[in-house]
């Protein structure tokens, strides 16, 4: 695909030359950027990134993934039989996906300050660099839009005929142009409001949110639409939707193909037809110039001179000790464990890779919890009544949190700065097990317990206060499962392995083991709660004792138990 796109560059040589762009330079820069695209990690595929070897047909694979997503979007056209309603939801999803992909997946490419050191010192005109950036975005979009749109195009041809397809293609184009305007505006707003470093942090936050929304959309939307909307409902009847540009596109369809001349439909359709012209004018006339100027300033800001130190308030500077210090003092047995606890706390707080890999798990748990409400049909109260009739459903959610806590523990072994792990070896650490248990306690205190309190609270709100014994036992059991899993699996010191190691089957084995333990212990809990409810309360101290026994064993890991890489 890249070769095909690249060879198209030379077809426009006269155009490039008339613009003052050197075609060979343009080809070289775009070719290099496309190679880099194929090797960089994106928000969509970050779970399987970092392969050092070139994977043939990676582009085809990515396009197939977008094709699958296109099928999911097509489902809206299928489920909502009144076509403008289906198109409204389709274009809303498409525009949101495109905007989020551009922001989360492509920002590092657009704001690449290395260009300033690698491209700017070479004899390449600024126009060539500017056009190469536009072509790069265009090629990226082509690879994304075509597979996304094809399923809907096929569906529309079959369902509504060729005329529908002829209208759908320009509507997709308008949706794309409007999204580009939106993204451009978001970039400029962020660039004006924030520093380069903060900007990237906001974008990283977008990546996490993007994953969460994608996952939630995948899990929940089909069920909700299937249950609530269905049939022939006309969503455009709701005039508030007129604020969403996707409704303007649906209105064009209503007006053009269905002959709907209701005044507001007519106004929306005109807005839809005018929007690409206005968008292109705004982008070309104002935004792109401002964007390039800001980008240059960002590049300079990314250099050595203007990097401001990231100040971190120490406990001495604060009026009160931090939550980390307080909890560390309280739960850590000695200075080694506290060192492991505080180091893990700080690194996980500031490591982008950790956040990108772990936070989506938290989102996933929340989505699964929300997924419970998608069971059955009716309003909220009716759904709650149905849930109340299945009292043991909450045990599944509570034990599912074991997977989250364990994934956090597993991830604390990995870091980009894994070579910094020399500090453990260069210092007199007698019992490295305390470093491991420090990291374990950090995950529990910082992530698991707060998350479990929320989860337990929500569960109790639905099923009533009588299940408090179950909530407590499940918590102690999850602590037990996670410490067992850590003791059996985690023999690498915190942040001492490169991320490449994370994809070598360790996490999979860990997940299977955790699931197995959760199922067995959760199953026993279920039987106890069902046949011998008082046994739930009796089991809490027993499980607690067992937990502390395993923790003690883990803390006593010696250097012989530690795997050194």
């Amino acid at each position, binding site marked *: 695909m890249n070769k095909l796109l690249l060879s198209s560059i030379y077809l426009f040589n006269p155009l490039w030359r008339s613009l003052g762009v050197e075609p060979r330079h343009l080809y070289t820069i775009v070719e290099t950027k496309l190679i*880099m695209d194929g090797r*960089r990690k994106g928000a969509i595929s970050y779970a399987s990134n970092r392969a*050092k070897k070139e994977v043939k047909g990676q582009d085809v694979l990515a396009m197939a993934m977008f094709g699958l997503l296109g099928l999911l979007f097509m489902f809206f056209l299928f489920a909502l039989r009144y076509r403008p309603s289906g198109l409204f939801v389709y274009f809303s999803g498409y525009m949101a996906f495109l905007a989020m992909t551009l922001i989360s997946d492509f920002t590092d490419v657009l704001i690449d300050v290395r260009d300033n050191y*690698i*491209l700017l010192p070479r*004899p390449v005109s600024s126009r060539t660099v500017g056009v190469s950036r536009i072509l790069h975005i265009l090629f990226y979009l082509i690879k994304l839009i075509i597979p996304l749109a094809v399923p809907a195009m096929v569906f529309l041809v079959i369902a509504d005929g060729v005329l529908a397809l002829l209208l759908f293609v320009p509507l997709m184009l308008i949706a794309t142009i409007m999204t580009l305007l939106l993204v451009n505006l978001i970039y400029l707003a962020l660039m004006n409001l924030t520093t380069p470093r903060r900007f990237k942090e906001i974008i990283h936050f977008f990546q996490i949110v993007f994953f969460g929304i994608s996952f939630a959309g995948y899990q929940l939307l089909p069920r909700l639409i299937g249950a609530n909307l269905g049939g022939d409902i006309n969503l455009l009847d709701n005039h508030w939707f007129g604020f969403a540009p996707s409704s303007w596109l649906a209105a064009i369809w209503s007006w053009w193909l269905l002959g709907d001349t209701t005044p507001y439909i007519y106004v929306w359709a005109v807005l839809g037809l005018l929007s690409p012209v206005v968008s292109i004018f705004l982008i070309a006339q104002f935004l792109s110039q401002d964007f390039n100027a800001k980008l240059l300033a960002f590049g300079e800001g990314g250099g050595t001179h203007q990097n401001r130190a990231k100040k971190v308030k120490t406990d001495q500077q604060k009026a009160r000790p931090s939550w980390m210090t307080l909890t560390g003092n309280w739960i850590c047995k000695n200075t080694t464990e506290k060192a492991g606890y505080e180091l893990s706390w700080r690194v996980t707080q500031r490591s982008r890779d950790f956040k990108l890999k772990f936070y989506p798990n938290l989102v996933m748990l929340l989505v699964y919890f929300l997924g419970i409400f998608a069971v059955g049909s009716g309003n909220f109260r009716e759904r709650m009544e149905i849930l109340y009739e299945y009292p043991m459903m909450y045990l599944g959610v509570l034990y599912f949190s074991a997977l989250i806590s364990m994934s956090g523990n597993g991830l604390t072994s990995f870091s980009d700065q894994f070579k910094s792990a020399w500090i453990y070896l260069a210092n007199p650490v007698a019992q490295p097990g305390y470093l491991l248990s420090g990291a374990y306690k950090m995950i529990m205190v910082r992530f698991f317990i707060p998350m479990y309190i929320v989860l337990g609270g929500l569960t109790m709100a639905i099923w009533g206060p009588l299940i408090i014994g179950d909530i407590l036992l499940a918590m102690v059991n999850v602590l037990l499962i996670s410490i067992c899993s850590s003791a059996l699996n985690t023999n690498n010191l915190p942040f001492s392995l490169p991320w490449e190691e994370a994809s070598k089957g360790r996490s999979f084995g860990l997940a299977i083991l955790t699931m197995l333990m959760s199922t067995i212990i959760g199953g026993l809990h279920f039987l106890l709660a069902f046949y011998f409810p008082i046994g739930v309360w009796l089991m809490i101290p027993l499980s607690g004792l067992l937990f502390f026994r395993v923790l003690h064993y883990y803390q006593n890991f010696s250097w012989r138990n530690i795997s050194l890489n």
Partner: protein
Amino acid sequence: MEPIIRIQNLQKFYGKKEVLHGINLSILPGQIIGYIGANGAGKSTTVRILAGLDKQFNGEVSIKGMDVRQDALAIKRIIGYIPELNEIYDVLTPKEFLLTVGRLHDLSDETILQRSTDMLVYFGLGDQLDNRMDTFSKGMRQKVLLVSGLLHNPEIIFMDEPLSGLDANAVILVKEIIVQLAEQGKTVIYCSHNMDTVEKISDRIILIDNGKIIADGPFEELRRNEGDSLEKLFSQLTGQSGFEQTANAFTQSFSKPEDRYE
């Protein structure tokens, strides 16, 4: 002889902070210029301006009679720039990276591959041509950067800490390369904290402090007493002294009572 680089009243501001205070310089062709100064003195900023990376400055800067703002492209054809920051597209292989750089200088692929392979072999990276650079050490990346700055046979070479991360043998090799490039008539502007190297290879030393040039000339002229090193001269000129007392105070920290957790 006509100067190849001429800088007149160069001023640079970062926000309200003035980092270059009206620098004036003329550099003749074929010289090795050791451009030294403390951290934040303004060395890299000057070099970035000369290499055409930064056009936001006051004053006149010309290379071979061409204005760096007006004739940026023509100037970039004759200069080579090796940045301080070890910035590289590290997901590429050295071969891919050097092909990109070489093509931007309009070299044919045959020339790029021939030259870059030879140069990387001399640097001991002959077996790394097709490996991605994100697994490279800092020294290996620095070698690739050095090759990228020299690949197109530039007349003027700006090197910002070129020995950063290199092993001892590579340092000797790079020093020798710099000397031989100057013998071929090329001009080398060499920024470094490594006083020993600067002292040994530079024809002329320029010392910048707080954005002002405070010394300029061959080392033999600059040193005040026989036996003085550039390191000592640097400390004297930048007003830094009393290192012995500071070191003494530092080591005395251990004499204070200590407390350890049991």
